[in-house]
C-alpha cells in the first residue's frame, strides 16, 4: 500500500449522482384507474398499459434471456399481466408487479432452456449488442458481453438495479427477497463483472492496453 496520500482534488470514484433511470414511483400516474379499466377488458386501457411498460419489460427480457427470445418472453409477460390483472389487488405497485412477472418469466424461460441444453454463452456473446450511449463504446460492448456470461440471478439484479435504476427496496420486492440479500447479490454481481472485464477495465483506467483481439471482439 503506498503511503503517499492522493491530493484532495484527485478524481475519486464516488456515489452515483444521476437520478435513477426509471424509478417505478415516477412512472406511475394513476395505476388504479388503468387497472380497473383493464379488468373490465377495455382495449384502449390495455394498450395504454402495454405502452407504459413495453420498453421496460422488453429491455429486461432482452438483457436476461438474450435478444433472440426477448420478443417471445415479453409477449408471454404481457399475456400473464392481462390475464392476471383480475387477481391484482394493489398490494404492491403495478410497476413492481409487472417487473416481478417479467423477471419470473425470463428466469423460468432460461431454466427451461438450460434443462433442454439450448443455452450457449458463446452463442449469446456473438449476438450484436444493442446501440449504446456511454462514454466508451468498446467498454460498453464488453459490458454487454460480460453481462450475458453472468449467472441468471446476478444478471437479474444488475438489470433491475444498475440498468433499470430501481432501488434496493423495489428490487427486493420484485425478486421476493430481503433488501440485505439484494445488496449482497449486487455486490457479488459487480465483483463477478469486474473479474470478467479485468483487462478492459484496466485499459479504461489507462493502466494497460486492452489488446488488439479484445478490441476486435468489442468491434463485433
Amino acid at each position, binding site marked *: 500500500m*503506498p503511503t503517499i496520500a*492522493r491530493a484532495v482534488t484527485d478524481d475519486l470514484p464516488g*456515489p*452515483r449522482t444521476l437520478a435513477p433511470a426509471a424509478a417505478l414511483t415516477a412512472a406511475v400516474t394513476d395505476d388504479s384507474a388503468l387497472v380497473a379499466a383493464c379488468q373490465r377488458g377495455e382495449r384502449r386501457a390495455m394498450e395504454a398499459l402495454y405502452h407504459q411498460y413495453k420498453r421496460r419489460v*422488453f429491455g429486461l427480457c432482452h438483457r436476461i434471456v438474450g435478444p433472440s427470445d426477448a*420478443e417471445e418472453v415479453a409477449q408471454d409477460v404481457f399475456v400473464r399481466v392481462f390475464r392476471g390483472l383480475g387477481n391484482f389487488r394493489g398490494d404492491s405497485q403495478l410497476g413492481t408487479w409487472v417487473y416481478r412477472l417479467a423477471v419470473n418469466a425470463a428466469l423460468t424461460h432460461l431454466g427451461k432452456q438450460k434443462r433442454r441444453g439450448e443455452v450457449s454463452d458463446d452463442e449469446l456473446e456473438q449476438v450484436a449488442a444493442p446501440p449504446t450511449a456511454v462514454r466508451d463504446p468498446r467498454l460498453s460492448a464488453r459490458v454487454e458481453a460480460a453481462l450475458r456470461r453472468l449467472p441468471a440471478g446476478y444478471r437479474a439484479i444488475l438489470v433491475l438495479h444498475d*440498468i433499470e435504476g430501481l432501488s434496493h427496496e423495489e428490487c427486493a420486492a420484485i425478486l421476493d427477497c430481503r433488501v440485505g440479500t439484494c445488496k449482497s447479490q449486487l455486490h457479488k454481481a459487480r465483483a463477478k463483472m469486474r473479474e470478467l472485464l479485468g483487462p478492459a477495465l484496466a485499459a479504461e483506467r489507462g493502466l494497460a492496453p486492452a489488446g488488439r483481439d479484445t478490441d476486435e471482439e468489442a468491434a463485433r
Partner: protein
Amino acid sequence: MTCREAQARLTAYLDGELDGSTASAIRGHLRVCDDCRHAAEDHAAIRDSLAGLARPEPPPAIWDGVMAKLGEAEIADSRRSRWSRLLHRLRPHLLPASLAVGACAAAAVIVHVRQDEPRRAAPQAVAPIDPAERGATDLVPPPAPPPIPPVTRDATIELAAETERIDARYREVAADLLGQAREQLGEKSAARRRFDREVAGLERAVLAAPAGKARDRAWHALITFLERAAIGELVAQVRR
C-alpha cells in the same frame, strides 16, 4: 479502515448508501490504497456502463403477438369444463387455502395428543387403590374421559367410545378372573396381600397406559396374571 472493510462497503459507498463518516473513511482509504481505488474505479465504471446502456426498442409485433396469444387463451378457456375454469380461477387461492387446511389438521393432531396426556397422569389424579377395601367387582375404575374440545369433537367422540368398549370387555374378563383367584387365596393371608399388591400394580399400569396398543399390553399382563392365579398355578408359589 482495512482493505477488506473498504471492499465490503464498496457497493454501498458507490450507491451513496453510507453515512457521512463511513463514506469519508472509505474515501480516505481510497486515497492511500491503489488496489482498493482500482477496485472502486472498476465498480464505478461497471455501474456507469450498465446505467448508460440504451434500452433496446421493442419490436412493434409484440402487441399483435400479445393480442393473438390472449385470443388463443380465451378460446382455450371456452373449451374448458366448468370445473376446470373454476379451478383455474381459484388457482391463486389454492395454495393459501391448502396451507390453512394443513395448519388446522396439525392443530387438531396437537390437541388430540395433548388430550391423551391427562390419562398418562391419571394414577396421580385418581384416588389411591387400597386392595384391602376393594371388592371383586370394583376392578379398575374407568379413567375419567378428558374434556373434548369442540374443534375435534366428532373424531374424538368416536375414538373414545371405541376405547371405552374395549376397556369394558377387558374389565369384565379381569373381574371374573379376580373373583376366582381370590377364592383360591382366601380372605386374610400374607399371600392374599402380596397378590392384591401385585394386582394393584398391574391395574395402575393399565390406567397409565394410553389408549391403543400400550393399554392392550397392560390389560394382557393383568389378565395373564389373574388367569394363572385363578387356575391355582400361582397360588402355590405365592403361599411359598
